[in-house]
């Protein structure tokens, strides 16, 4: 697999390009001469300037998806372009809801595997290889493709810094979606936006996350109050999301959001592998846990071995008295 052309799946909402897309463009630009975006949506014109400014020369747009989830039509369109000889050497997709759908569908259509959970890309044997953290990020494995098919990479958010290239607006071109038969029959009939005040979890400078050590659902208020006092975003471990204390959108970790704030405060979180992967890139980590053996302390800059029910109220009081 030579690396001359990379396609990046562009994602956007309300005319705003997702940060992950800009991150992927920054890396793709480093690796390939030609970087183009693939976009499933009606508003490619609205995002062409931003995508161009981050290095995409073209936006290949399917146009309005008519309520379809992106996976089927976008994958079908990309596969058709590949079959026609117009495809790229590699496709970069973010580890997002739609990115994973497109990658899975595309993989079968091209009969090509996906390298997943990628946090960096390197060249190996003349092709692109993905770097994937395993065991909570204590080890990295590098995986390459062994065929010359299009390389499909699912890349985790926050792996690269978004950076403008100074390019002009990307040229919008149509990408034809072939008939997808029964596979494309799912339809979005209504969208719900969950209003959240305060900073976004994956963009906040400070994150306060709570875990099972809080004891019960009502005690999550301790985390929310501390977050409010610090202008921070509240987060959660998978354990308390699974237990239904807070919505999935609060989850930090392998299956949730990757965060890299200036300060991450883990309250009553033991630090399971799946959680550490999502937060160990934080610049500073404070952990409060009553178990001195908790793995979270192995990554903490400041660890307090104590009861969150005692430490958090005092901390909150001290902050409010300042």
């Amino acid at each position: 697999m030579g690396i001359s052309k990379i396609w990046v799946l562009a994602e956007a909402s309300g005319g705003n390009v997702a940060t992950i897309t800009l991150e992927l463009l920054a890396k793709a630009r480093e690796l390939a001469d030609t970087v183009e975006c693939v976009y499933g949506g009606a508003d490619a014109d609205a995002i062409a300037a931003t995508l161009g400014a981050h290095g995409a020369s073209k936006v290949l747009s399917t146009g309005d998806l008519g309520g379809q989830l992106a996976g089927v039509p976008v994958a079908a369109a990309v596969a058709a372009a590949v079959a026609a000889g117009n495809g790229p050497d590699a496709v970069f997709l973010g580890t997002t809801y739609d990115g994973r759908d497109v990658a899975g569908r595309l993989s079968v259509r091209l009969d090509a595997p996906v390298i997943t959970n990628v946090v960096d890309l390197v060249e190996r044997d003349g092709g692109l290889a993905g770097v994937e953290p395993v065991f909570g990020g204590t080890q990295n494995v590098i995986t390459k493709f062994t065929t010359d098919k299009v390389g499909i990479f699912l890349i985790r958010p926050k792996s690269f810094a978004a950076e403008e290239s100074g390019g002009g607006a990307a040229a919008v071109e149509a990408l034809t979606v072939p008939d997808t038969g029964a596979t494309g029959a799912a339809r979005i009939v209504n969208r719900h936006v969950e209003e959240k005040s305060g900073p976004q979890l994956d963009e906040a400078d400070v994150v306060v996350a709570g875990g099972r050590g809080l004891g019960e659902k009502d005690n999550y208020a301790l985390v929310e109050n501390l977050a409010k006092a610090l202008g921070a975003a509240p987060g959660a471990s998978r354990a308390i999301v699974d237990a239904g204390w807070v919505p999935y959108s609060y989850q930090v970790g392998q299956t949730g959001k990757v965060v890299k704030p200036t300060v991450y405060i883990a309250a009553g979180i033991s630090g399971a592998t799946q959680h550490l992967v999502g937060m160990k890139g934080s610049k500073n980590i404070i952990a409060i846990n009553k178990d001195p053996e908790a793995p979270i302390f192995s990554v903490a800059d400041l660890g307090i071995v104590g009861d969150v029910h005692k430490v958090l109220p005092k901390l909150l009081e001290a902050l409010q008295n300042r």
Partner: protein
Amino acid sequence: MNVVVCVKQIPDPADPGALDPSTNTLKRDGKLILDESDSYGVEMALQLVDAAGGGEVTLVSMAPNSEVSGLRTALAMGAAKAVLVSDDALKGSDALTTAKVLAKAIERAGAYDLVLAATESSDGYTGTVPEQIAEVLGLPSVTFAKSIAIDGGTAKVDRQTEAGYDEVTCPLPAVVSVTAGVVEPRYPSFKGIMAAKSKPVDEVKVADLGLDAANVGWAGAGQAIVEVADAEARQAGEVVEDDGEGYARIVSFLSDLKII
């Protein structure tokens, strides 16, 4: 209403995982258990069959060494039967091959209305298999379901999104992947555990599914791990016992960083 649930039997997450030094893949030769992520799909399937007033839940799984302990857990919860694909030829299979094998196993499981899977496993976490299965089977799909209701021949799914959730309708048969925490998985009763011991597990080889052993496992994988390296370790900092003044350490830490 017949529901097929894809379940994975994984090494106990409580035990530290390790890579097999000769293959650089996850060691899976010890005892395997039901991936907790899959217990939600099993519970959801049982509830849907119950609501429909008839039908059954069938499990499909691919695992080494004829492993059934995870399947027995799900059978004890109430699933009726299972198809287990266990074949040395499958060692080294990537997610795409896994999807092809599971798709064949699903077809073997009999007539179905719905296929459920977790969004991703807790050991390999590629998160692509449900969508790959749907494409192999030529079915529509909805991923990241927070809830599922069946209305005639249509699934009504609330699908997790970055901003909140989407209401999605999808004609059956379909593949739906469910996020953890959508339902409270039941604990198997004693009666369920006893009954599970005699529930049928149809164990098959790759050839029984009409697949060529030369196209699966290591031979069929289109990717290879070329390097394993220790990641840069994060330096552990100071750990102090809370003597009632632990909060003050946090205040000064935040103050030093000019966060407050």
